[in-house]
């Protein structure tokens, strides 16, 4: 073997041996990815989304709801108000000072709920509609690259930071390498059991005047209950409006007025 060939072989060997190392992301790079994901979805100003929820449960007829999500990220405020069907119209959730309240116009009563409970009994949760806080809440580790259909994704394992309460302490995230869109999310219980899988097949962007940049949102999220395999929920975000909302919108009185 000539010296040239020997050098070439050595170079290839070094390249092959060092390939996994090269692929792995540094912690700072992973946090950067999470920060980008969070930032791309954040508006900074107000946010209003028209949502559609379709819930499938075993031995039950499918349940469909429509409603609106209102957010004021600067004040950490959130409201979910259902508008359809008639039986659900006026029901809603309001997050105030880290408390989640639910309102049922049929009984005219507010109930304090846990922040991490299901929204309207579906597989979705408050956090799915709220501001993304992945970088703030989780510590990532890199699990390599993974193929999801035609997409190549970074597979991150997120573990909740100490003293932060979340519904699922371990999350596996598939992030599109090219766009930084989340493609898939698996959520695990404390025991390590897979509880819920979420797929994000479509992402859309809308220009925000207040932010001066695009705000990205998942147009469709498919939640699969991994404990009760037959249960699933589809969330469609039909439209997003980033104009300023009424000043007094995030109040119990405002939500109550909508059901009268």
């Amino acid at each position, binding site marked *: 073997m000539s010296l040239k060939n020997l050098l070439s072989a050595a170079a290839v060997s070094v390249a092959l041996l060092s390939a996994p190392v090269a692929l792995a992301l540094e912690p700072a790079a992973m946090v950067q990815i999470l920060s980008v994901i969070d930032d791309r979805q954040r508006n900074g100003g107000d946010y209003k989304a028209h949502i559609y929820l379709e819930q499938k449960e075993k031995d039950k007829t499918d349940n469909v709801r429509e409603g609106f999500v209102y957010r004021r990220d600067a004040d950490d405020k959130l409201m979910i108000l259902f508008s359809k069907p008639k039986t659900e119209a006026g029901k809603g959730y309001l997050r105030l000072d880290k408390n989640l309240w639910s309102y049922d116009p049929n009984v005219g009563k507010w109930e304090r709920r846990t922040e991490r409970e299901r929204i309207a009994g579906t597989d979705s949760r408050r956090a799915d509609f709220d501001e993304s806080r992945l970088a703030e809440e989780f510590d990532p580790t890199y699990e390599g690259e993974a193929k999801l259909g035609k997409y190549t994704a970074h597979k991150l394992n997120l573990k909740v930071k100490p003293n932060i309460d979340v519904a699922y302490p371990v999350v596996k995230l598939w992030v599109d390498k090219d766009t930084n869109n989340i493609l898939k999310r698996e959520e695990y219980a*404390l025991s390590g059991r897979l509880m819920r899988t979420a797929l994000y097949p479509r992402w859309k962007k809308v220009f925000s005047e207040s932010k001066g940049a695009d705000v990205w949102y998942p147009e469709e999220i498919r939640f699969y209950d991994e404990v009760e395999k037959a249960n699933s929920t589809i969330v469609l975000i039909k439209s997003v409006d980033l104009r300023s909302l009424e000043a007094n919108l995030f109040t119990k009185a405002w939500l109550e007025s909508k059901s009268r």
Partner: protein
Amino acid sequence: MFQLFLIAFRNLGTHRRRTLLLGGAIAGVTALLVILMGLSQGMEETMLRSATTLGTGHVNVAGFYKITSGQAAPVVTAYPKILELVRKEVPELDYAVQRGRGWAKLVSEKTSSQVGVGGIDVKDEPGFRQVLQVRSGSMDDLAQPNTVLIFEKQAKRLEVKVGDIVTIAAPTMRGTNNTVDVRVAAIAADVGMMSDFNVYVPSQTLRALYQLRDDSTGAIFLYLKDLKQMAQVQARVRQLLTDAGYTLMDNDPRAFWFKFDVVNREEWTGQKLDITNWEDEMSFITWTLKALNGLTGILTFVLLVIIGVGIMNTLWIAIRERTREIGTLRAIGMQRTRVMVMFLFEAMTLGALGTLAGAIIGFVVCVAVDAAHVGVPEAAAMFIMSDRLHLVVNAGSVLGAMVFITGCTTLISLIPSFLAARLKPVTAMHHIG
């Protein structure tokens, strides 16, 4: 007086058909009352036995712990200290156990259901074995970690048998989801409503699910030597814990899960104890008992009115028939009061004999039904916490029913008796009846 009683007794014998008819009606009412009382007392006894074993003590030291104002968990922290205090200061105590409380999703391969999860130390719970009949598996296996005791109907619904693995999923006190896989160690016979939504796991398994410390539990169940001391013990435990520096919730006579709304609405955080008794914890079922007692009361009242009208009418006819006799008795010197007493005695004798016959019939029916172990429909079994009809005849209650009905018949006969006594001897003797 005895002569008057004798006259009354003979009069009843003379008018045999009338006596049999009225006496039969009184006996019927008494028998019905005795049976309904037997049913009500039987239900109460069954419910008390099942409920105080499966879901509540005679007196409970329970409570809520709130990490944030919006998240309440049915948890009592540092329970050994409380238990020690109660054991020292409550001599009426027979024994005490701790029981974890939870609400979780029980998931099998086929389906799932929401259940109340009780965390027990089966070795410390002798009452458990007395109330529950294990259909398959062994209750002793419940001492092993990660096992579960379910009931027949649940096993059917979940399509599982002993040895199968099911998952219990629930959020912890901080709202983080957790699961635990448990093996079905025993399947017990249904005990009405309690078995519809309750399963039992070892205490340690429940603590692992909810990430609780070893000295945390759901409630301390206190069992008393004499149930009659319940109210005073409850008041004393309340005072005792207040004096010891614990914060107590206001008395709210409802089952603990009805209180989440109220507790979650309140701003406080930390620990608040709640002292309840078995009637509070079973208030969602005891309404059936109250309804049955109410129904018994209404039924008895209606029947008594019918009988009262019958007695009044019959005595009226008797007086009319015997007006000349009354006139003669009055003419030979019988006082008005004695005439009245004579008719009263007649009604009283009829009442006493009728109720006696009715009580005997009712007693026999109760004993026979109880001995026959008659099954009850599923809907009824749910409320009485037993799939068998259990009737209990209490001698005091039967005697009370007899006295009550006899008293009513006697009181009702006062009006015609008084009218008979008021007749003038001359008018009475000239009466053409």
